[in-house]
């Protein structure tokens, strides 16, 4: 049986992780390789690195980081942030990334999804969508929720699937940071409307939120950052709890 995946997300800038990470015995909390390895040891099924490097010139350091991660890590990982072309994606693929995620660049140029899928296969292309409720409608937002677009979230996701997205990473901006649980209603609606996997993001605060998510929706994976970084939820404990609820997990 296919397991539900648990995916810690790390923000990286200039090849270093940012935001505090609270592992007690880390030598260097900013070292993405050490962190990634630690999460892999604890049972993470996959990792996402979100590259927030500001300038194009510094992207080289990201490539070096991706290579170091790929050398050390024996689980798959995705890298997102700032990918605007097939050439950007190819450099990451050749450095060992299993998947890339695109967000704003795909909104501005939907053909990018198609080009990436044709060049590398749909399994390589994750579409990240940030959604926020505006006057009762779920609308796609950019820049971490600051910029609204004219796209309705569910329409955009259907279009992206048709263009060749292989997976959807859906972040609810209304839930993100609240630690009050995932947006199960929207997530389930989206997961049932498409035929590709969905990663849920935004709102994880405690173990029950993950159980609720997997018991009440058809999503395939859950992504979270701070609850893992600050040690509020330990991966092995989370997996055990999910298993107790008969949710398929990898132990």
């Amino acid at each position, binding site marked *: 049986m296919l397991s539900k995946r648990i995916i810690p997300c790390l923000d990286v800038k200039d090849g270093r992780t940012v935001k505090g990470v609270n592992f007690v015995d880390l030598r260097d909390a900013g070292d993405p390789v050490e962190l990634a390895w630690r999460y892999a040891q604890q049972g993470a099924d996959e990792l996402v690195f979100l590259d927030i490097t500001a300038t194009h010139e510094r992207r080289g350091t990201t490539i070096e980081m991706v290579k170091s991660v790929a050398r050390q890590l024996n*689980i798959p990982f995705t890298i997102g942030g700032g990918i605007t072309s097939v050439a950007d994606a190819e450099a990451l693929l050749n*450095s060992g990334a299993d998947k890339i995620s695109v967000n704003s660049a795909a909104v501005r140029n939907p053909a990018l999804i198609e080009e990436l899928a044709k060049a590398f296969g749909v399994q390589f292309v994750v579409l990240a969508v940030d959604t926020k409720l505006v006057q009762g409608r779920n609308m796609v937002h950019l820049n971490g929720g600051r910029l609204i677009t004219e796209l309705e979230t569910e329409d955009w996701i259907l279009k992206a699937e048709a263009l060749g997205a292989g997976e959807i990473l859906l972040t609810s901006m209304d839930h993100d940071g609240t630690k009050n649980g995932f947006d199960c209603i929207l997530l389930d609606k989206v997961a049932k409307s498409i*035929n590709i996997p969905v990663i849920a993001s935004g709102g994880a605060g405690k173990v029950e939120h993950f159980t609720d998510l997997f018991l009440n929706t058809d999503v395939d994976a859950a992504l979270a950052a701070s609850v893992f970084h600050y040690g509020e939820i330990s991966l092995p404990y989370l997996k055990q709890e999910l298993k107790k609820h008969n949710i398929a997990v990898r132990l």
Partner: protein
Amino acid sequence: MIGIVNYGAGNIFSLTSALERLHLPYGMINEEGELDKYTHIIIPGVGHAGAAMRKLEQTGLVEPIKTLKKPVLGICVGMQLITSHSEEGDANMMNIVPVRTRLFDKELGIKIPHMGWNNIRHKNTSLFEGIENGSQFYFVHSYFIEYNPIFDIATADYGLPFSAGVQKGNFYGVQFHPEKSGTAGERLLKNFSNLKE
């Protein structure tokens, strides 16, 4: 030493990294003459099976590979290349293992690609030595190898049972990515490197 067939289908950085972590030496095979330099051969592959087959044909390696007597392991699309035919691009494959590569049927209520960790039931062949039955491996694919009891050495379920591992003589194939499948995957690569001709 392991030789990796280098025919330009997909990235092999993760595979070579895994071999390095396991301290297994390897080299690249670009043409027929280089096949003799290695004791074990890996055929990697990501992407479109039909396109991969065309690229492999262009290297002139198809016929020499078919006559090999040493252990050969196809991974993912590399496994599909050793089957008879793939529905992806309606393409004839190398036909080393006479089974077909077929597209998952979304009518079975499954999402495609089959992406993530799934458990397998293996038949205790040398390739799976020391790997607990029911272990999980990382899969990412939209096409699968039809189950055939004669050649199946590991089975997984996704809408239907399919072959996660096949063997015919010295030819092996795995649909999952051992290089991304944690310690179980690393053990499988190690086991492969220990197979005798």
